């Protein structure tokens, strides 16, 4: 399953929010990916996520592949985290 969200942080998806995102993604059993401008990367990798260079107001897709049973949960929690702007708004 998949959801498109918009990065709201002023400095884009930079190191601090990426860190928080990975931390949260690690809590789920399901595989999580982020896709941006045609590139898909492992959402557990800080380096890969930062290498996407996602700027403010860019759309990204959160893609969850269910290995456990927590895919729906993961998608909900992770997209809410991004939409909240990681407490930087």
């Amino acid at each position, binding site marked *: 399953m998949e959801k498109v969200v918009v990065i709201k942080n*002023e*400095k*884009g998806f*930079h*190191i*601090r929010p*990426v*860190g*928080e995102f*990975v*931390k949260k993604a690690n809590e789920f059993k399901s595989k999580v990916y982020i896709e941006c401008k045609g590139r898909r*990367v*492992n959402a*557990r*990798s*800080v*380096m*890969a996520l*930062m*290498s996407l*260079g996602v*700027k403010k107001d860019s759309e990204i897709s959160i893609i969850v592949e269910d290995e456990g049973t927590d895919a729906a949960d993961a998608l909900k929690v992770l997209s809410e985290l991004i939409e909240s702007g990681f407490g930087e708004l």
Partner: protein
Amino acid sequence: MLKGTNASPGIAIGKALLVENIEFHIERFSIEDTELEEKKLLAGIEKSRNELRVVRDKALINLGEDKAKIFDAHLLILEDPELIDATINVIKDEKVNSEYAFSQVIDMFVQIFETMDDEYMRERSADIKDVSDRVLRNILGIKYVDLSYLEDTVILVVHDLTPSDTATMDKLKVAGFLTDIGGRTSHTTIMARSLEIPAVVGLKDITVKVCDGDFIVFNGATGEVIINPDDETIEYYEKLKEEYLRQKNELKLYIGRETVTPDGKHIELAGNIGTINDIEGLLKNDSQGVGLYRTEFLYMEKDNYPTEEEQFEAYKKVVIALGQKPVVIRTLDIGGDKELPYLNLEKEMNPFLGYRAIRICLDRKDMFKTQLRALLRASVYGNLKIMFPMISSLHELLEAKELLEEAKRELDTAQTLYSSNIEIGIMIEVPAAAIISDILAKHVDFFSIGTNDLIQYTCAVDRMNEKINRLYNQFNPAVLRLIKLVIDNAHREGKWVGMCGEAAGDKRMIPILLGMGLDEFSMSPISILNARKIICSTKYEEAKIIAQKVLKLETDGEIEKYLKELYPSQEVVIKN
């Protein structure tokens, strides 16, 4: 004696701790036992993680949650499956040593960041380098100075400080910083000022000139550094330090006090700032507003014009941070000694007399109106005032005001709000403007006297030319007469006058300016409390007499002699 950029005031005396930047020479070896290399890699990463956890915990205590989260992200880099898997793959596929494999993978990521067109993202390669150097050091077993466990009090001598250095260092044991690189807005400077640790930066090769354990004294307010001084010099610096600490403590008493003379004249005491980072120091020193916000830094930190949106956000932040206190924002003042590469300006014979400041803005109207719209939009968030630099004729002022009206009409069309009663002022820094200040005063709400340029233009003295330094003097009677003229002309039209040049924070100048009737003094935030102390202890009626007397003297030498008799003590330590 060495001289660098005065980054953070205070006197430091102590032994140097030279923190050398160990250049890693990562070599490529062919190896057979790839499993052993994998183990070395994982052990290096594990050790780095343990170190970073300590860093994170210290940062949480010393720098707060926000900064600590950056180190959380650093820790996650060390758990990064892509990074670790890719490194192990390189070890196995190429049969190479672990440090080489790791540095290869890191370089690949760093290259991606460095090619991004986003400045912020590009800078993040510094975070990654910080983390990867730690891992490489640990794989190679290289010892390094752990700043979080210092035995003795030291003066740190370092090429530059990294964020993790400043986060973990044992601040009670650090008497000061000296660095090779950096300027007034670099990380080290900002940290030193917020931690109130004396610092001199940009000394170019201090890490070469100083040996570990050398004795050093330095003055963070003047940028002067002496290596292995004689006993007499040490004694002198010890006295300076004592005096500095005494003054600093005494000045704290002036936080929260009104700036008012003993006979009841109220004065506005404001600060000069260049970026949002200066706000902390401004508020800590209890400034009553911003008397000069230099917007050129917004333009200088970029490699292209800042957008209206970027400028709006920057102005808004400053205005909001100041609540209802006034914020005087000066429109772009570029040219002269301040260059802006993307403007593609031609080299000039006399840049200070050339194409600069408002002259450029009136010529490049779109660029100027972008800034004006951003300013207007930010005005609804507080008490914003707009100030035009380098005005030398009424014509320029009227043209600038007309462009402001155009910007307003553009916002009206877009139905965007702006404050309806924004005060408009000009810098008085060209003698021509001072002389016709009676005319200009009719068309503005305020003046702000920029003494640095006013002195240079009035006396025809290039302030960068050391050979004629002696002629650059704020007590030149011609300069003082112009200042008096400007104040009188403004008051006749019922307008207020401020000063945002260095002279406004000068302790000998303050009583004279007060006596001339200056309404607002704006200076480096660090000088504010000292200025308040002087104003609170100088009667306005007495200041008037001092000003009258000074205006009758015939040379700067006579004026300085008179002031020396008036204020015999020489305390220059606090001034920055």
